Protein backbone atom coordinates (compact mmCIF):
# COMPACT_ATOMS: atom_id res chain seq x y z
CA UNK A 1 0.00 0.00 0.00
CA UNK A 2 1.29 3.42 -0.94
CA UNK A 3 0.39 6.89 0.23
CA UNK A 4 1.16 10.30 -1.16
CA UNK A 5 3.37 12.34 1.11
CA UNK A 6 3.89 16.05 0.60
CA UNK A 7 6.69 17.51 2.62
CA UNK A 8 9.60 19.93 2.53
CA UNK A 9 13.06 18.41 2.63
CA UNK A 10 16.06 20.69 2.99
CA UNK A 11 14.03 23.65 1.77
CA UNK A 12 12.61 21.92 -1.31
CA UNK A 13 8.98 20.82 -1.68
CA UNK A 14 8.41 17.16 -2.53
CA UNK A 15 5.34 15.09 -3.35
CA UNK A 16 6.27 11.44 -3.03
CA UNK A 17 4.54 8.11 -3.33
CA UNK A 18 5.61 6.26 -0.22
CA UNK A 19 5.17 2.63 0.81
CA UNK A 20 3.43 2.69 4.19
CA UNK A 21 5.95 0.11 5.45
CA UNK A 22 8.88 2.46 4.87
CA UNK A 23 10.74 4.28 7.59
CA UNK A 24 11.62 7.92 7.09
CA UNK A 25 15.23 6.73 7.02
CA UNK A 26 14.49 4.52 3.98
CA UNK A 27 12.61 7.31 2.24
CA UNK A 28 15.38 9.86 2.70
CA UNK A 29 18.13 7.49 1.60
CA UNK A 30 16.15 6.58 -1.53
CA UNK A 31 16.14 10.29 -2.34
CA UNK A 32 19.92 10.15 -2.21
CA UNK A 33 20.22 11.76 1.21
CA UNK A 34 22.75 9.21 2.41
CA UNK A 35 24.04 11.34 5.26
CA UNK A 36 21.15 9.69 7.12
CA UNK A 37 22.78 6.53 8.46
CA UNK A 38 21.23 3.36 9.73
CA UNK A 39 23.21 2.37 12.80
CA UNK A 40 21.24 0.32 15.31
CA UNK A 41 17.83 0.57 13.65
CA UNK A 42 16.08 0.69 17.03
CA UNK A 43 16.41 4.29 18.18
CA UNK A 44 19.47 3.81 20.38
CA UNK A 45 22.41 5.28 18.46
CA UNK A 46 21.09 8.43 16.80
CA UNK A 47 23.05 7.98 13.54
CA UNK A 48 19.75 8.42 11.64
CA UNK A 49 18.85 11.69 13.41
CA UNK A 50 17.06 14.24 11.23
CA UNK A 51 14.99 17.29 12.17
CA UNK A 52 11.23 17.13 11.76
CA UNK A 53 9.68 20.55 12.24
CA UNK A 54 12.88 21.60 13.98
CA UNK A 55 13.00 18.67 16.43
CA UNK A 56 15.56 15.89 16.36
CA UNK A 57 14.05 12.44 15.81
CA UNK A 58 15.40 8.98 15.02
CA UNK A 59 14.29 8.44 11.43
CA UNK A 60 14.76 4.65 11.72
CA UNK A 61 11.74 4.34 14.02
CA UNK A 62 9.59 6.97 12.33
CA UNK A 63 7.20 6.02 9.54
CA UNK A 64 7.80 7.80 6.24
CA UNK A 65 4.07 8.60 5.97
CA UNK A 66 4.36 10.75 9.11
CA UNK A 67 6.48 13.19 7.11
CA UNK A 68 3.32 14.40 5.37
CA UNK A 69 2.93 18.15 5.86
CA UNK A 70 6.20 18.42 7.74
CA UNK A 71 9.55 20.10 7.22
CA UNK A 72 12.53 17.75 7.25
CA UNK A 73 16.17 18.72 7.52
CA UNK A 74 19.20 16.49 6.98
CA UNK A 75 22.91 17.27 7.03
CA UNK A 76 22.89 17.71 3.23
CA UNK A 77 20.74 20.81 3.57
CA UNK A 78 22.89 22.52 6.16
CA UNK A 79 25.68 23.60 3.83
CA UNK A 80 24.79 26.50 1.54
CA UNK A 81 26.67 27.83 -1.48
CA UNK A 82 29.50 25.43 -0.82
CA UNK A 83 29.94 26.64 2.73
CA UNK A 84 29.36 24.55 5.80
CA UNK A 85 26.90 25.62 8.48
CA UNK A 86 28.27 27.11 11.67
CA UNK A 87 27.71 23.80 13.46
CA UNK A 88 29.44 21.81 10.73
CA UNK A 89 32.39 24.20 10.69
CA UNK A 90 32.63 24.05 14.48
CA UNK A 91 32.83 20.23 14.33
CA UNK A 92 35.69 20.50 11.85
CA UNK A 93 37.48 23.16 13.87
CA UNK A 94 37.12 21.22 17.13
CA UNK A 95 38.31 17.95 15.58
CA UNK A 96 34.94 16.42 16.47
CA UNK A 97 34.89 14.10 13.45
CA UNK A 98 36.80 10.85 13.38
CA UNK A 99 35.31 7.88 11.51
CA UNK A 100 32.36 10.11 10.65
CA UNK A 101 29.51 7.60 10.76
CA UNK A 102 27.76 9.31 13.67
CA UNK A 103 28.59 12.81 12.47
CA UNK A 104 25.57 13.69 10.30
CA UNK A 105 23.18 12.64 13.08
CA UNK A 106 25.16 14.50 15.70
CA UNK A 107 25.29 17.58 13.48
CA UNK A 108 21.48 17.59 13.34
CA UNK A 109 21.12 17.14 17.11
CA UNK A 110 23.61 19.95 17.69
CA UNK A 111 21.89 22.14 15.11
CA UNK A 112 18.51 21.81 16.86
CA UNK A 113 20.16 22.42 20.23
CA UNK A 114 22.13 25.47 19.11
CA UNK A 115 19.12 27.03 17.39
CA UNK A 116 17.06 26.57 20.54
CA UNK A 117 19.67 27.81 22.99
CA UNK A 118 21.24 30.69 21.14
CA UNK A 119 21.99 33.54 23.50
CA UNK A 120 21.24 31.46 26.58
CA UNK A 121 23.66 30.28 29.18
CA UNK A 122 24.12 26.56 28.78
CA UNK A 123 26.10 24.19 30.98
CA UNK A 124 28.22 21.32 29.71
CA UNK A 125 25.82 19.00 31.51
CA UNK A 126 22.93 20.39 29.45
CA UNK A 127 24.91 19.88 26.25
CA UNK A 128 25.72 16.31 27.29
CA UNK A 129 22.11 15.53 28.15
CA UNK A 130 20.87 17.01 24.89
CA UNK A 131 23.29 14.78 22.96
CA UNK A 132 22.64 11.63 25.00
CA UNK A 133 20.72 10.08 22.11
CA UNK A 134 23.72 10.11 19.77
CA UNK A 135 26.45 7.54 20.26
CA UNK A 136 30.00 8.16 19.08
CA UNK A 137 32.58 5.42 19.54
CA UNK A 138 35.58 7.46 18.39
CA UNK A 139 35.77 10.90 19.91
CA UNK A 140 34.89 10.37 23.55
CA UNK A 141 32.47 13.31 23.05
CA UNK A 142 34.78 15.99 24.47
CA UNK A 143 35.48 17.57 21.09
CA UNK A 144 31.79 17.42 20.20
CA UNK A 145 30.90 19.32 23.35
CA UNK A 146 33.58 21.89 22.52
CA UNK A 147 32.12 22.29 19.06
CA UNK A 148 28.66 22.98 20.51
CA UNK A 149 30.11 25.40 23.04
CA UNK A 150 31.91 27.22 20.26
CA UNK A 151 28.68 27.58 18.30
CA UNK A 152 27.01 29.09 21.31
CA UNK A 153 29.88 31.56 21.50
CA UNK A 154 30.87 30.88 25.06
CA UNK A 155 33.73 28.48 24.78
CA UNK A 156 36.24 30.73 26.53
CA UNK A 157 34.20 31.61 29.60
CA UNK A 158 32.62 28.19 30.03
CA UNK A 159 34.07 26.46 33.05
CA UNK A 160 33.83 22.70 33.26
CA UNK A 161 31.12 21.77 35.74
CA UNK A 162 31.37 18.02 35.63
CA UNK A 163 34.98 17.29 36.28
CA UNK A 164 36.34 17.05 32.77
Amino acid sequence: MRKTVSCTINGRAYTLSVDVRQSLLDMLRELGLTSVKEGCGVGECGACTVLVNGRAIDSCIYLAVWAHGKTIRTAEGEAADGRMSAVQQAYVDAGAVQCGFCTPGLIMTSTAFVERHRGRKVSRQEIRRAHAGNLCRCTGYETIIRAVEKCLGRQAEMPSDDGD
Partner: protein
Amino acid sequence: MFAIDYYQQAESVAQAVALLAAEPGARLVAGGTDVLIRLREGRGDYARLVDINGLEELRGIGLADDGTLRIGALSTFRQVMASDDVRRLVPVVAEAVGTAGGPQLRNVATVGGNICNGAVSADSVGALLVHDAQLEIQGPEGRRRTPLQGFHTGPGRVALARDEVLVALHIRPRDYRGFGAAYYKYAMREAMDIATIGCTAAVRLEGEAIGELRLVFTVAAPTPVRCAHAEAAAAGRPLTAETLDAVAAAVAADVQPRTSWRARQDFRLHIIRTLAARVTRRAAERAGGKF
Protein backbone atom coordinates in the same frame (compact mmCIF):
# COMPACT_ATOMS: atom_id res chain seq x y z
CA MET B 1 10.78 -2.05 5.38
CA PHE B 2 8.66 -2.87 8.37
CA ALA B 3 6.64 -6.08 7.99
CA ILE B 4 3.28 -4.32 8.16
CA ASP B 5 0.43 -6.42 6.69
CA TYR B 6 -2.44 -4.05 7.37
CA TYR B 7 -2.28 -0.30 7.76
CA GLN B 8 -4.97 2.33 8.13
CA GLN B 9 -4.58 5.94 9.16
CA ALA B 10 -7.41 6.94 11.47
CA GLU B 11 -8.80 10.42 10.94
CA SER B 12 -10.59 10.54 14.28
CA VAL B 13 -10.71 8.61 17.54
CA ALA B 14 -14.14 7.29 16.57
CA GLN B 15 -12.72 5.99 13.30
CA ALA B 16 -9.78 4.40 15.11
CA VAL B 17 -12.23 2.55 17.36
CA ALA B 18 -14.23 1.39 14.34
CA LEU B 19 -11.10 0.24 12.50
CA LEU B 20 -9.89 -1.69 15.53
CA ALA B 21 -13.31 -3.32 15.93
CA ALA B 22 -13.44 -4.29 12.25
CA GLU B 23 -9.94 -5.69 11.94
CA PRO B 24 -9.10 -8.55 14.31
CA GLY B 25 -5.48 -8.48 15.40
CA ALA B 26 -5.06 -4.80 14.61
CA ARG B 27 -3.46 -2.59 17.21
CA LEU B 28 -2.66 1.08 17.58
CA VAL B 29 0.56 2.80 16.67
CA ALA B 30 1.02 6.26 18.20
CA GLY B 31 4.61 7.53 18.48
CA GLY B 32 5.92 4.22 17.17
CA THR B 33 8.97 4.09 19.43
CA ASP B 34 7.91 0.73 20.83
CA VAL B 35 5.73 -0.68 18.05
CA LEU B 36 8.25 -0.12 15.25
CA ILE B 37 11.01 -1.69 17.34
CA ARG B 38 8.81 -4.74 18.01
CA LEU B 39 8.17 -4.97 14.27
CA ARG B 40 11.86 -4.81 13.55
CA GLU B 41 12.34 -7.63 16.04
CA GLY B 42 10.04 -9.67 13.81
CA ARG B 43 7.00 -9.66 16.08
CA GLY B 44 4.09 -10.67 13.88
CA ASP B 45 1.55 -9.57 16.50
CA TYR B 46 2.38 -5.96 15.59
CA ALA B 47 1.90 -6.39 11.83
CA ARG B 48 -1.63 -4.98 11.68
CA LEU B 49 -1.70 -1.30 12.56
CA VAL B 50 -4.23 1.45 13.02
CA ASP B 51 -2.22 4.67 12.98
CA ILE B 52 -3.36 7.44 15.33
CA ASN B 53 -0.09 9.41 15.09
CA GLY B 54 -1.71 12.37 13.33
CA LEU B 55 -4.78 12.83 15.57
CA GLU B 56 -4.58 16.37 16.90
CA GLU B 57 -7.66 15.75 19.07
CA LEU B 58 -5.48 13.50 21.24
CA ARG B 59 -2.83 16.15 21.84
CA GLY B 60 -2.85 19.10 24.15
CA ILE B 61 -2.41 19.67 27.87
CA GLY B 62 -4.73 21.96 29.79
CA LEU B 63 -6.68 22.73 32.94
CA ALA B 64 -10.41 22.23 33.42
CA ASP B 65 -12.46 24.79 35.38
CA ASP B 66 -12.29 22.66 38.53
CA GLY B 67 -8.48 22.58 38.34
CA THR B 68 -8.26 19.06 36.91
CA LEU B 69 -5.20 18.69 34.68
CA ARG B 70 -5.89 16.95 31.38
CA ILE B 71 -3.02 15.44 29.42
CA GLY B 72 -3.94 14.28 25.92
CA ALA B 73 -2.79 10.69 25.38
CA LEU B 74 -0.77 11.60 22.30
CA SER B 75 1.21 14.29 24.11
CA THR B 76 4.89 13.57 23.61
CA PHE B 77 7.28 13.33 26.53
CA ARG B 78 8.82 16.57 25.34
CA GLN B 79 5.45 18.32 25.34
CA VAL B 80 4.79 17.06 28.86
CA MET B 81 8.21 18.30 30.01
CA ALA B 82 7.59 21.70 28.41
CA SER B 83 4.04 22.18 29.76
CA ASP B 84 3.79 25.02 32.26
CA ASP B 85 0.75 23.37 33.86
CA VAL B 86 2.61 20.08 34.33
CA ARG B 87 5.72 21.78 35.71
CA ARG B 88 3.69 23.90 38.13
CA LEU B 89 1.13 21.36 39.37
CA VAL B 90 2.68 17.90 38.91
CA PRO B 91 6.40 18.52 38.31
CA VAL B 92 7.27 14.91 39.08
CA VAL B 93 5.51 13.89 35.86
CA ALA B 94 7.88 16.10 33.86
CA GLU B 95 10.81 14.88 35.94
CA ALA B 96 9.89 11.26 35.26
CA VAL B 97 9.36 11.43 31.50
CA GLY B 98 12.60 13.42 31.26
CA THR B 99 14.49 10.27 32.26
CA ALA B 100 13.14 8.20 29.36
CA GLY B 101 15.50 7.32 26.52
CA GLY B 102 17.13 10.34 24.91
CA PRO B 103 15.99 13.58 23.31
CA GLN B 104 15.03 12.00 19.98
CA LEU B 105 12.79 9.47 21.71
CA ARG B 106 11.19 12.10 23.94
CA ASN B 107 10.34 14.20 20.87
CA VAL B 108 8.21 11.34 19.52
CA ALA B 109 7.19 8.91 22.29
CA THR B 110 3.75 9.51 23.80
CA VAL B 111 2.46 9.30 27.36
CA GLY B 112 -0.52 7.24 26.22
CA GLY B 113 1.75 4.74 24.55
CA ASN B 114 3.93 4.51 27.64
CA ILE B 115 0.83 3.57 29.67
CA CYS B 116 -0.95 1.33 27.17
CA ASN B 117 2.05 -0.82 26.25
CA GLY B 118 1.96 -2.04 29.84
CA ALA B 119 5.73 -1.93 30.34
CA VAL B 120 6.62 -2.55 33.98
CA SER B 121 9.51 -0.12 33.55
CA ALA B 122 7.48 2.75 32.06
CA ASP B 123 9.01 5.99 33.33
CA SER B 124 5.76 7.96 33.35
CA VAL B 125 3.64 5.48 35.25
CA GLY B 126 4.89 5.98 38.82
CA ALA B 127 4.40 9.74 38.67
CA LEU B 128 0.92 9.31 37.24
CA LEU B 129 0.04 6.71 39.89
CA VAL B 130 1.11 8.81 42.89
CA HIS B 131 -1.19 11.51 41.51
CA ASP B 132 -3.94 8.91 41.07
CA ALA B 133 -4.41 9.70 37.36
CA GLN B 134 -7.77 8.84 35.83
CA LEU B 135 -7.93 7.45 32.31
CA GLU B 136 -10.42 8.65 29.73
CA ILE B 137 -10.99 5.81 27.29
CA GLN B 138 -13.12 5.68 24.14
CA GLY B 139 -14.66 2.49 22.85
CA PRO B 140 -17.58 1.46 20.67
CA GLU B 141 -20.05 2.30 23.47
CA GLY B 142 -18.64 5.77 24.09
CA ARG B 143 -16.26 7.12 26.70
CA ARG B 144 -15.48 5.74 30.14
CA ARG B 145 -13.28 6.79 33.03
CA THR B 146 -11.17 4.39 35.01
CA PRO B 147 -8.32 4.84 37.47
CA LEU B 148 -4.78 4.16 36.26
CA GLN B 149 -4.44 2.28 39.54
CA GLY B 150 -5.30 -1.31 38.60
CA PHE B 151 -5.08 -0.69 34.84
CA HIS B 152 -1.92 -2.79 34.55
CA THR B 153 -2.85 -6.47 34.68
CA GLY B 154 0.54 -8.07 34.03
CA PRO B 155 3.82 -7.53 32.21
CA GLY B 156 2.92 -5.81 28.93
CA ARG B 157 -0.80 -6.13 29.65
CA VAL B 158 -3.42 -3.50 30.52
CA ALA B 159 -7.19 -3.50 30.96
CA LEU B 160 -7.89 -1.93 27.58
CA ALA B 161 -10.22 -3.75 25.21
CA ARG B 162 -8.77 -4.27 21.76
CA ASP B 163 -11.21 -1.77 20.24
CA GLU B 164 -10.59 0.95 22.82
CA VAL B 165 -8.38 4.04 22.61
CA LEU B 166 -6.89 5.94 25.54
CA VAL B 167 -7.90 9.55 24.96
CA ALA B 168 -6.47 11.44 27.94
CA LEU B 169 -5.21 11.30 31.50
CA HIS B 170 -6.78 13.44 34.21
CA ILE B 171 -5.22 14.49 37.49
CA ARG B 172 -7.63 16.00 40.00
CA PRO B 173 -6.72 18.89 42.33
CA ARG B 174 -7.10 16.71 45.43
CA ASP B 175 -4.40 14.46 44.00
CA TYR B 176 -1.80 17.19 43.44
CA ARG B 177 -2.57 20.04 45.87
CA GLY B 178 -0.20 20.08 48.82
CA PHE B 179 1.93 17.19 47.57
CA GLY B 180 5.66 17.20 47.07
CA ALA B 181 6.86 14.39 44.86
CA ALA B 182 10.02 12.83 43.45
CA TYR B 183 11.10 10.10 41.04
CA TYR B 184 14.31 8.12 41.13
CA LYS B 185 15.25 5.90 38.23
CA TYR B 186 17.85 3.36 39.18
CA ALA B 187 19.59 2.33 35.94
CA MET B 188 23.07 1.52 34.72
CA ARG B 189 23.33 4.69 32.64
CA GLU B 190 22.07 8.23 33.06
CA ALA B 191 20.35 8.19 29.66
CA MET B 192 19.25 5.72 27.00
CA ASP B 193 18.48 3.06 29.58
CA ILE B 194 15.59 1.14 31.07
CA ALA B 195 15.00 1.32 34.80
CA THR B 196 16.30 -1.53 36.92
CA ILE B 197 14.04 -0.13 39.63
CA GLY B 198 11.90 3.01 39.50
CA CYS B 199 10.63 4.68 42.67
CA THR B 200 8.12 7.51 42.87
CA ALA B 201 6.92 9.08 46.10
CA ALA B 202 4.43 11.83 46.85
CA VAL B 203 4.08 13.28 50.34
CA ARG B 204 1.49 15.62 51.83
CA LEU B 205 2.47 17.07 55.18
CA GLU B 206 0.23 17.66 58.16
CA GLY B 207 2.02 20.02 60.47
CA GLU B 208 5.38 18.46 61.31
CA ALA B 209 4.30 14.98 60.25
CA ILE B 210 3.63 13.02 57.10
CA GLY B 211 -0.11 13.29 56.48
CA GLU B 212 -0.06 11.00 53.49
CA LEU B 213 2.59 9.07 51.61
CA ARG B 214 1.95 7.61 48.18
CA LEU B 215 4.73 5.29 47.09
CA VAL B 216 5.01 3.46 43.78
CA PHE B 217 7.65 1.08 42.50
CA THR B 218 8.18 -0.02 38.93
CA VAL B 219 10.12 -3.12 37.83
CA ALA B 220 9.52 -4.41 41.35
CA ALA B 221 6.58 -6.70 40.54
CA PRO B 222 4.71 -7.92 37.43
CA THR B 223 2.92 -4.56 37.35
CA PRO B 224 3.72 -1.11 38.77
CA VAL B 225 2.74 -1.26 42.47
CA ARG B 226 1.35 1.18 45.04
CA CYS B 227 2.96 0.24 48.33
CA ALA B 228 0.16 0.04 50.91
CA HIS B 229 2.32 -1.30 53.74
CA ALA B 230 5.03 1.31 53.30
CA GLU B 231 2.44 4.07 52.99
CA ALA B 232 0.74 2.96 56.22
CA ALA B 233 4.10 2.93 57.98
CA ALA B 234 4.53 6.62 57.19
CA ALA B 235 1.04 7.98 57.81
CA GLY B 236 0.93 10.36 60.75
CA ARG B 237 4.61 9.80 61.54
CA PRO B 238 7.13 12.61 62.14
CA LEU B 239 9.85 13.59 59.67
CA THR B 240 12.59 11.50 61.20
CA ALA B 241 15.10 8.85 60.24
CA GLU B 242 13.03 6.34 62.23
CA THR B 243 10.02 6.99 60.01
CA LEU B 244 12.13 6.46 56.89
CA ASP B 245 13.50 3.23 58.38
CA ALA B 246 9.94 2.07 59.01
CA VAL B 247 9.00 2.80 55.40
CA ALA B 248 12.06 0.90 54.15
CA ALA B 249 11.25 -2.06 56.40
CA ALA B 250 7.58 -2.20 55.43
CA VAL B 251 8.05 -1.95 51.68
CA ALA B 252 9.25 -5.54 51.28
CA ALA B 253 5.65 -6.68 51.82
CA ASP B 254 4.51 -4.59 48.84
CA VAL B 255 6.89 -5.78 46.11
CA GLN B 256 7.85 -9.00 44.35
CA PRO B 257 11.16 -8.28 42.64
CA ARG B 258 12.57 -10.94 40.35
CA THR B 259 15.96 -11.95 39.10
CA SER B 260 16.78 -10.87 35.56
CA TRP B 261 19.96 -10.11 33.69
CA ARG B 262 19.70 -6.52 34.89
CA ALA B 263 19.77 -7.36 38.58
CA ARG B 264 19.29 -10.24 40.99
CA GLN B 265 16.25 -10.40 43.22
CA ASP B 266 18.12 -9.70 46.46
CA PHE B 267 19.94 -6.74 44.93
CA ARG B 268 16.65 -5.37 43.62
CA LEU B 269 15.16 -5.63 47.09
CA HIS B 270 18.16 -3.77 48.49
CA ILE B 271 17.62 -0.98 45.95
CA ILE B 272 13.90 -0.92 46.75
CA ARG B 273 14.46 -0.49 50.50
CA THR B 274 17.10 2.18 49.94
CA LEU B 275 15.00 4.13 47.47
CA ALA B 276 11.81 3.86 49.53
CA ALA B 277 13.50 5.88 52.27
CA ARG B 278 15.49 8.20 50.00
CA VAL B 279 12.68 9.14 47.65
CA THR B 280 10.13 9.49 50.44
CA ARG B 281 12.50 11.92 52.11
CA ARG B 282 13.02 13.89 48.91
CA ALA B 283 9.27 14.10 48.32
CA ALA B 284 8.69 15.28 51.89
CA GLU B 285 11.39 17.91 51.51
CA ARG B 286 9.80 19.10 48.30
CA ALA B 287 6.53 19.41 50.21
CA GLY B 288 8.39 21.78 52.51
CA GLY B 289 9.35 19.33 55.25
CA LYS B 290 12.64 19.26 57.16
CA PHE B 291 14.26 16.16 58.63
